[in-house]
């Protein structure tokens, strides 16, 4: 019998099938700042990888490289701030304040999850049992993620996937599709159009962490830290 060997990190064998989707690689041309580099140098990955997950979406194996940079999983905790349906899920340290204002204005529930942002800032895996526990608690309240991070990290719907809870939005111009939601581009565009947005251009390539443009509307709460105008400003 031949000895069996497991491939734990397929990136070490790959020519870079996902590489054209990596924002740090396409902006620098440097292989070190690509999934090929990040899979080999974890410290570099923690510092430089944007954790946008585009590589994982383009990988034939959907290998979750951006959560392999630290071994110790992050335990998630949940706090219900305001009961109601739908339950808006915000993340501590990212969009809690925004979530509080929106829940107040639109009479939604509000829950705050702690820990998940580390998945998208450092590159930690999520502790599976704590995730399961949180989802069990959220399920009865029709949870919707305020940020792409909460939608992707918890596997729940993004706010724009439930357009019926939102008001009409007056905006004409370019929009940006969040990296973590590129696979839901069609649904998001459809929702925005349904809400009255006239879309003149769609940016599906850039990541807000490399900078925001003045003429584009962003759907990530995080974009405000990078100088971008967000959809959420139009909801008040």
């Amino acid at each position, binding site marked *: 019998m*031949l*000895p*069996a*060997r*497991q*491939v734990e990190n*397929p990136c*070490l*064998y*790959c*020519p*870079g*099938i*996902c*590489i*054209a989707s990596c924002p740090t690689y*396409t902006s*620098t*041309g*440097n*292989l*070190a700042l690509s999934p*090929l*580099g990040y899979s*080999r*140098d974890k410290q*570099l990955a923690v510092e430089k990888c944007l954790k946008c997950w585009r590589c994982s979406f*383009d*990988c*034939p*194996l959907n290998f979750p490289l951006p959560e392999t940079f630290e071994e110790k999983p992050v335990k998630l905790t949940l706090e219900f701030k305001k009961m109601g349906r739908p339950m808006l899920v915000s993340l501590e340290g990212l969009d809690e304040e925004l979530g509080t204002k929106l829940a107040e204005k639109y009479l939604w529930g509000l829950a705050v999850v702690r820990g998940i942002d580390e998945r998208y800032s450092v590159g930690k895996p999520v502790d599976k049992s704590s995730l399961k526990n949180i989802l069990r608690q959220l399920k009865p309240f029709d949870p919707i993620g305020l940020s792409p991070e909460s939608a992707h990290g918890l596997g729940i719907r993004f706010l724009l996937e439930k357009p019926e809870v939102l008001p009409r939005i007056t905006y004409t111009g370019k929009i940006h599709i969040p990296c973590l939601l590129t696979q839901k581009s069609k649904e998001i565009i459809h929702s925005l159009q349904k809400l009255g947005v006239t879309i003149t251009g769609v940016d599906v390539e850039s990541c807000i962490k490399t900078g925001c443009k003045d003429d584009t509307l962003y759907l990530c709460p995080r974009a405000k830290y990078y100088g971008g105008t967000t959809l959420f400003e139009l909801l008040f």
Partner: protein
Amino acid sequence: MGEEHFPKERLIEKLESEFPGRFARDKTTLRLYSRDYWPLALLKETRGEELPLPLGVVWPESVEEVSRIIKLCNDYRIPFVPYAGGSGVIGGTICKDCVVIDVKRMNKVISFSEEDAIVVVESGILLKKLEDFLNSRGFTLRHIPQSFPEAAIGGLIATMSTGQFSTKYGGIEELVLDLEVVTPDGSIIPLRKNTVPRAATGPNLKYLLIGSEGQLGVITKAVLRVFRLPKNQWKNSYAFPDFESGLKAMRELMLSGLTPAVARLYDRDDASLRFHHDRDILLLIFEEDNERLLSVKTEESERIIKNYGGVAIGPEPVEKWLKTRFDVISELKKLVVPLNLWFDTIETAATWSALPRVYRVFKERVKKVKGVYAVLAHASHFYTTGACIYFTLTYEANEETYWRMWEEAMKTLLETGATISHHHGIGLLRKKWVRDELGDTLEYLKRIKRCLDPNNVSNPGKWLGE
């Protein structure tokens, strides 16, 4: 002239000061740039062996900067190697103590003319990005190799690449209208003063650079022919009594002018692994703007295929291939590495009269090599004169088996009248056998190399240099 002592250190200082933030020599970067996707180099890396490291990597942003870097390399007699996508499979970029000139910051589309169906690009543009650009304007380069997701234009030209749609649209050499190049002494060979479909203005230097594998300088710009995205596509697959009948049918199609865009004839071993079919099968894609033309071509092709014993089995194998065609990692992860095996591909081409023997003898002999586990074959680039056969090999993951297999493979191809490479190129891998195929022609190519590169600094140690 540069300093006589410590030339490496002096050159490093120069590059650091002239290219701040765009010159790197940290361990991670050097290791990543120490190889392309040559399976032997990858095997060594995964086994923890250190590959020959380059001196550093520099990312120029203009042709003038490429020229400056190369002049510095000449001053200090330090070699350089051009680098684009890094998707080559022949060790063409492995160059100990070389300065790697990575052109990927030179990645602009300079101009696109819909009327003339011509695009002008910098050589560092990723093929996928260029194709996206063209597709959004209703056009296509139709150059789709398996390395499509990671390859860049400069590298595809330098290795004389071909693509999955080559049967209709040709290899890269048929798409390149003109090139801008920095020669090994740092001079710039500009684009022509006009862009024309063809010109009888003497030998065209572009042919010298296509396939030069970085040994004659750095390609910095390319003028490329593009095509309108075809409006209509037709797909089907056929089972044949044997591989040779499939080849005969394809010969008839090609000589009748019924050229498909894609034709892939898998032998039963290959078909069994990829499509779970236990017969030799042919996958066809025809595409035309004109629906009537498409229908005439496909009807006539089906008639010919039937004459050679082909039986239609539906478009599913084509659809499956379209979905999985760039995925080189799934099989490696599931079937190759866990069994302590390794992989490689050997692509060749021969005339119709030689092809059946090339196929038969190659499979027989190479399969007998100790340590070789499987030899699968498909023909996938067709011409009026013959075709390319692409062998996929798995073998025990060690270097001895690797070279034993390659020795037998190259000997067999040369003996049966086939080429040692259809589209992967020479690099370090096939260096040993080039003379057996080119004969004295190699001497003339070497003379050109010596003339253009008197200091032998442009990717030395490969097949044109010493």
